[in-house]
């Protein structure tokens, strides 16, 4: 395994405080798709972690067959701070905002320029539409807002000079369009005589295998007599039960990863894990949710405290 360190000889937007100072926000206003000339709205659920779930309450849409239209709103409160001695671009240069759409599961990525950020603006606010054509994306993608250099002036040192240089990522969303109606890797099966649920962890290399059904998922058995209690559309749906199932399943996934000390160490320390992989998702859990990994008992408790709170919001 090679260790890589990226060294930039120009200023980039890496300091979280600087990103905060810029006052950038990207909000998903809504999602829809086009069905033979008619715009059909989809349900969007966004969390603070950057996960955005898009689902269709009519159960007719999927991103592969129908595509997706995302309406987003962008605010940049302090664009002028990008430029000059305290900024990331020289005073004489031009900086733009772009969106990258990338998906490992769909084997593609593309980049769209959105707007130039004028240095004299006191703030920038705009709406933008991200259109995903049918047939291209399988189920999920990453949406990143980046600043990039449009053109530079050559008189100031310490700044990027090559047009197209990405100066930093302002925000990142993971857009998930699952076929299920629950925002976790939960897939339904029909297994006579089977238990209500179980977890499958089939990845062989967490840093390569994607966090998709074939490698990791929770199975809910529709033929089990207690299925109504985990069916969100049923009047007997039980939030405590589904919370317990998800908590136990997540802990099983983490236990599986922690069995291999080398792999677990890589998951929690490697700086650039490939997006969408099992390793990246587990790392996100490790970094974002403040779970207590100091012992199995504390981990079990902290996972449940989090999951029960999240499910309560459904």
């Amino acid at each position, binding site marked *: 395994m090679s260790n890589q360190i990226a060294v930039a000889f120009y200023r980039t937007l890496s300091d979280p405080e600087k990103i905060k100072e810029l006052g950038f926000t990207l909000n998903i206003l809504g999602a829809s798709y086009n069905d033979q000339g008619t715009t059909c709205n989809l349900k969007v659920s966004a969390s603070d972690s950057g996960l955005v779930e898009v689902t269709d309450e009519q159960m007719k849409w999927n991103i592969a067959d129908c595509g997706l239209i995302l309406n987003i709103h962008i605010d940049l409160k302090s664009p002028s701070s990008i430029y000059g001695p305290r900024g990331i671009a020289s005073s004489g240069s031009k900086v733009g905002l772009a969106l990258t759409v990338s998906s490992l599961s769909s084997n*593609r*990525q*593309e*980049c769209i320029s959105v707007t130039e950020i004028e240095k004299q603006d006191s703030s920038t606010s705009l709406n933008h539409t991200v259109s995903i054509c049918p047939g291209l994306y399988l189920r999920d993608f990453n949406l990143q807002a*980046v600043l990039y250099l449009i053109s530079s002036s050559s008189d100031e040192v310490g700044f990027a000079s*090559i047009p197209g240089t*990405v100066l930093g990522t302002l925000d990142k969303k993971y857009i998930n369009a699952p076929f299920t109606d629950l925002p976790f890797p939960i897939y339904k099966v029909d297994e006579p005589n089977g238990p209500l649920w179980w977890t499958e962890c089939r990845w062989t290399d967490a840093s390569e295998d994607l966090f998709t059904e*074939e490698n990791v998922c929770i199975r809910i058995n529709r033929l089990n007599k207690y299925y109504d209690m985990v069916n969100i559309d049923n009047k007997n749906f039980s939030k405590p039960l589904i919370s317990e199932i998800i908590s136990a399943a997540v802990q099983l996934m983490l236990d599986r990863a922690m069995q291999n000390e080398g792999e677990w160490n890589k998951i929690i320390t490697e700086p650039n894990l*490939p997006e969408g992989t099992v390793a990246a998702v587990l790392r996100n859990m490790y970094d974002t949710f403040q779970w207590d990994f100091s012992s199995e008992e504390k981990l079990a408790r902290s996972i449940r405290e989090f999951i029960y709170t999240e499910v309560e919001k459904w």
Partner: protein
Amino acid sequence: MVTWQRLSKEAAARTAAAWENMDRESYERLKDHWTSTGPTDLNPFYSDLRKSIVDLNTESKKNVKDYSAKNRYPADLFFGIHLYKLLNDCGMRPCDASDDDIWRYLQVKVVPDLINDRWKPNNEEKRINNERMWEHSRRIWLKILWWYIELSLQNNSLEDTEKILKNNSSDDISQLIERAGNGYRIGLYRAIMKQYGETPHQGSTLLRRVLKLNIVRCATVEPQLSSEKTEEYVAELFEYCRDNDEPKQ
């Protein structure tokens, strides 16, 4: 619209394990059955598709001059181009081609004999090359042939595409497919393959070096946001690789 059948990694593993665990006589009977009547339980669409793929495979060996076990590339290219057209005519889209379960079904259930014939197992004690048959996402054979053509497509014309690919080698297929990064920049890769096809080849390392340099450059400069046209960016990659040593990652 066709509904592609899917086979999970787990199910494919079970099937391959069953083949490995058969006694020799039963396995030989199974292989004979594949080649004589084809796998059972295929619906009419897949039965017809199997026949078409088998015919293509046979044709790829007959129509290519100097077909040999040592130089399979010309036959692989012929097969790949026609397979791409066949599957697309059946309704395969890029999102379908990204779904490994679809490819596993095609390889394990529909044409296992073809894959077995093309890719012998690395271990003499094994019967199946699992990596190529179902296991490794970027080595599933029919999948990588499809993506090789998709990433090299020129002017939406398979004839133009064949022209720029004809002087390549089997190693070039792997080099291209295995460098996906966070997803292929489709337009950029097509431009790279066009330039590569029009460049007198300097040994087998040029494409590898260009692709590695591209990955390194893309970490800081996004080609799609550059003021250079894609063709200029690609020309500069090739010029750099011709003039300099292999970039280290």
